[in-house]
């Protein structure tokens, strides 16, 4: 987690976006040979595992060296009552450059807010009062709501049926990687594509 946070900080100046990626949710160089889109649900335990255990390693080994462009996408599942609300807050926070912090705290405290529904209390902890006011307003902004829905629609168009799912794109090839992944296998896949 600490490494992930450090990497995010290092990469903040490098934040960039592909044609349709929210710049606040994209990490690394958009000209990287591989793009990974992570479709996740803040209330999904496997997504928490991916975010906290696998993505920091992807950041260290591939995003920071410029080999992978990492894009976060929202895919709140209907079975999770608070995940769309969380996705809206996170997307709103991305407009202020606070997506990494909000995503970290949402996953870290997933069990608590997933049980009591206090999503905002969790989000507000990592924002200043001024930021919190803006995020609350932005979370209801039609542009933010439609961005979340666009991610969901993109996921459905890619036939995603579970979270987390990573869409690994290399040239014209796109490979969905669903569920909790073994990092050794993911590394082998990425290294194979980079050869």
């Amino acid at each position: 987690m600490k490494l992930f946070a450090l990497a995010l900080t290092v990469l903040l100046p490098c934040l960039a976006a592909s044609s349709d990626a929210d710049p606040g949710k994209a990490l690394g160089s958009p000209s990287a040979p591989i793009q990974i889109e992570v479709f996740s649900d803040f209330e999904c335990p496997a997504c928490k595992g991916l975010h906290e255990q696998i993505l920091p390693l992807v950041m260290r080994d591939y995003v920071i060296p410029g080999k992978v462009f990492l894009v976060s996408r929202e895919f709140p599942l209907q079975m999770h009552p608070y995940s769309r609300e969380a996705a809206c807050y996170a997307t709103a926070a991305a407009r202020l450059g606070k997506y990494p912090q909000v995503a970290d705290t949402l996953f870290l405290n997933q069990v608590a807010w997933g049980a009591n529904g206090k999503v905002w209390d969790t989000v507000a902890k990592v924002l200043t009062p001024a930021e919190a006011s803006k995020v609350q307003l932005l979370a209801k902004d039609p542009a933010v709501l439609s961005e979340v829905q666009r991610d969901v629609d993109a996921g459905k168009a890619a036939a995603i049926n579970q979270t987390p799912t990573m869409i690994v794109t290399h040239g014209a090839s796109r490979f969905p990687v669903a569920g909790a992944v073994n990092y050794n296998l993911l590394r082998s896949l990425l290294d194979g594509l980079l050869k």
Partner: protein
Amino acid sequence: MVSLSRVFRALVLALRVALGAVFVYAAWTKLRQPWQLFAMSIDAYKVLPYWAVLAVARTLPWAELAIGLLLMAGRWLRITSTAASLLMMLFLALMTKAYADGMHIDCGCFGLGDPISARTLARDGSLLAGYLFLTWTSLSGRRKAA
């Protein structure tokens, strides 16, 4: 008038070619993508150690291809139909266990995006019935010949 035994043989032939094609298709969906993706599907079942996951991911699609082609060609039927039945039994047992354990994973049967569900279990159960029937006809044919 066409005899019943000729109709039966024609049906068995059609079933053999179709079920062979299923194995060939299953192999093709795995071989056309990086092997690591199939390895991830196998690993998701949490039944094999890492080294075995790698070994199965690299060899099983080729075995499926060979079995499928041999079934379609009608070569070594007793061996290939028995191997197909045993493989399908193994797949179905693993899928049923994963489903019963509430694991939300891809079955890995025909490439990606095929999560285990009652539908996939029914589909593979039906296929198993077909392979068992082929095995029965190939083995009973041998006994009759003897």
